[in-house]
């Protein structure tokens, strides 16, 4: 019994240590965001003086780095791309799961193969195509970003299809006997039954523009007006800006991370539910 207690204490000490290792960078972000001295160099772990000015200046001094504007840009892009891609993904996954037609298997195979190309290999080409149709200048850049995040999303339907596959088909059949069209089955029966997977799809699509920065960097280029938060914050850490903006980067990072974390926690709940649904069959 004693041996067990010792190992138990050991486990708890080890877990606490790990938690510390995992949380130190996060705590560091929060602490630095309140730090009064400028610059990335710091001689001590804890700041010598605290201030809120990093946050206030982020919103007040918008001449070089317009954080509120980036936030709005990202929000708008996220809302639209979330709507379009959720609609696309759910339509395709429902069609693949429930409808039977000639091109179904070939379409699934093509989607599999497309998934194996590195995502941004086609990025340059997408950029030129969008430029070719006049979507790569001015505020239209944001439209281009929406298209990039959402238009190709129809190929990523496998998780959602897997979920629809687990919903019993006998409900559909009963509804069809009662005179429902397949469209009515889709939006009156399948959609209400699939809340977990829909929330998951919507949230994932909404989060993507906040955390992506490769595509945004290529499409937006150097026009600071149309930055999303990810590229904007990244630019604060370039060599010429880091001394002045390091602490403000941290403040911005905290502000972006809070909504994302909340959404993610929400998402986590639904992940577990979808998992349970799949097992129940």
């Amino acid at each position, binding site marked *: 019994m004693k041996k067990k207690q010792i190992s138990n204490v050991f486990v708890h000490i080890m877990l606490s240590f790990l938690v510390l290792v995992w*949380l130190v960078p996060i705590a560091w972000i929060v602490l630095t965001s309140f730090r009064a001295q400028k610059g*990335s160099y710091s001689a*001590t772990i804890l700041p010598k003086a605290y201030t809120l000015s990093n946050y206030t200046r982020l919103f007040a001094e918008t001449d070089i780095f317009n954080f509120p504007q980036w936030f709005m840009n990202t929000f708008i892009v996220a809302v639209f791309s979330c709507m379009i891609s959720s609609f696309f993904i759910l339509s395709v996954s429902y069609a693949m799961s429930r409808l039977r037609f000639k091109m179904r298997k070939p379409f699934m195979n093509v989607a599999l193969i497309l998934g194996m190309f*590195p995502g941004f290999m086609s*990025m*340059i080409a997408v950029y030129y195509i969008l430029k070719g149709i006049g979507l790569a200048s001015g505020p239209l850049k944001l439209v281009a970003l929406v298209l990039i995040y959402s238009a190709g999303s129809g190929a990523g339907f496998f998780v959602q299809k897997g979920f629809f596959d687990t919903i019993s088909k006998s409900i559909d059949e009963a509804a069809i006997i009662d005179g429902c069209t397949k*469209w009515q089955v889709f939006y009156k029966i399948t959609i209400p039954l699939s809340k977990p997977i829909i929330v998951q799809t919507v949230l994932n699509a909404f989060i993507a523009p906040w955390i992506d920065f490769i595509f945004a960097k290529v499409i937006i280029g150097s026009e600071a007006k149309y930055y999303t938060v990810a590229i904007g914050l990244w630019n604060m850490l370039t060599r010429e800006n880091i001394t002045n903006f390091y602490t403000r980067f941290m403040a911005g*990072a905290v502000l972006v991370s809070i909504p994302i974390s909340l959404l993610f926690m929400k998402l986590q709940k639904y992940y577990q539910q979808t998992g349970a649904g799949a097992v129940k069959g």
Partner: protein
Amino acid sequence: MKKGEKKKEFVTGYTVSNAVKKGDVFTRLSMIFLGLGNFARGERAKGILFLTSEVGFLYLFVSFLMPALGMLPSLGLTATEEVFNETTQLYEYTQGDNSMLILLYGIISIFMIAAFVVLWRAAQKSAYKVQYKAQNNIKILGFMQEMKTYLNEELHKLLLTLPVIGVIAITIMPIIYMVSMAFTNYDRDHQPPGNLFTWVGLDNFRLLFNFAGNFGSTFMYVLGWTLIWAVFATGLNYIFGMLLAMVINRKETRFKGFYRMCFVVTIAVPQFVSLLLISQMLQPEGIVNVVLRNTGILGSAESLPFLTNITWARVTVIIVNLWVGMPHTMLTTTGILNNIPPELYEAAKVDGANKFVTFFKITLPYMLHVTGPYLITTFVGNINNFNVIYLLTGGKPNTMEYYRMTAGKTDLLVTWLYKLTIDNRDYNLGAVIGIMVFAISAFFSLIVYRRTGSYKNEEGFQ
């Protein structure tokens, strides 16, 4: 289901070959005038739609597609040139061909022609269908009634049209565009506008597979590191993440929810924030070195070369990736670990097995069996793990050994691809590397799909 039966599943009599063989005069004339058959037999709206799209296509064909396709084999002949203008006494530039746009328009044209072929075939089938109905006295639906079938029998067409157009335009077309660049000499010395590039066949692949050459040897080194990275990043994350999940899952461990939440918080912080921050912390003047100096472990001028020494940097990225990835593995494995039948453990206990034996003989085999596909997907994901490398080290430390210093010692194939195309504009070489990454990913993914039952037997759960 046998193959023969499968083929029969979707057979209808309304095929293009039947339209050609059994069609009457209207149906056959529809081959030239799309929609004529529909129009003659009362499907007015449909017939007009077919005909207008044909006219539109023909207009496009003459005005856009023909010139675009004509330029495609050469990718442009006249380069931009400097000409001395006698009257103004100035040098002027003549407008030359832009090879990049020619290639792009050529590919768009090919897609448009393919779209027209699809439309043409649909028109033939439709014409034969309406002829068949008229001959056999089957009621021909009005336009609105026909539209209603798109909510029922033809629902898949309604649901799929827009997503498929999106995938073709934003995913397939760009991929083909990039792949075709692998067969050109579109590199930093052939930048349009101003310079032309042209088809060079397999030259870029010869360059790649000439391992004695600089490019080929760089490829081998970067590929080697990519695979080492992927093996360690996947394997260590898997083992340690699972151990973490098991330790938290233990009956005796308290505050389970708290521990899990602490780890999940780190996933929720966007990677570009956490990784950029860690990269800052590990700089020679970063907080980690400062703390080590303050505590006297390092001398006042010393620093540990976390990201500047080659071996240190490589080990650092793998360890930092543990920080990134372990919580993910913990989350995915927690549920599955709970599903392992407890009888197995009890039996092992009766037989006197200790913890290590039960882990290696029961837990690990069970987990590998269940999460095998997940493991390989993660492996492929790590081969393509752009974020961790790009945000943490940016591929550095750089080296003279690598091709034109385009890659650093921690660069993966994907980050090298990014640097080749975005920073160095060697689009042809970037495309070749992209194709190789595709081949490697496809190889490992195929192993997964051959093994998973869910792909072959989709309806097993219902």
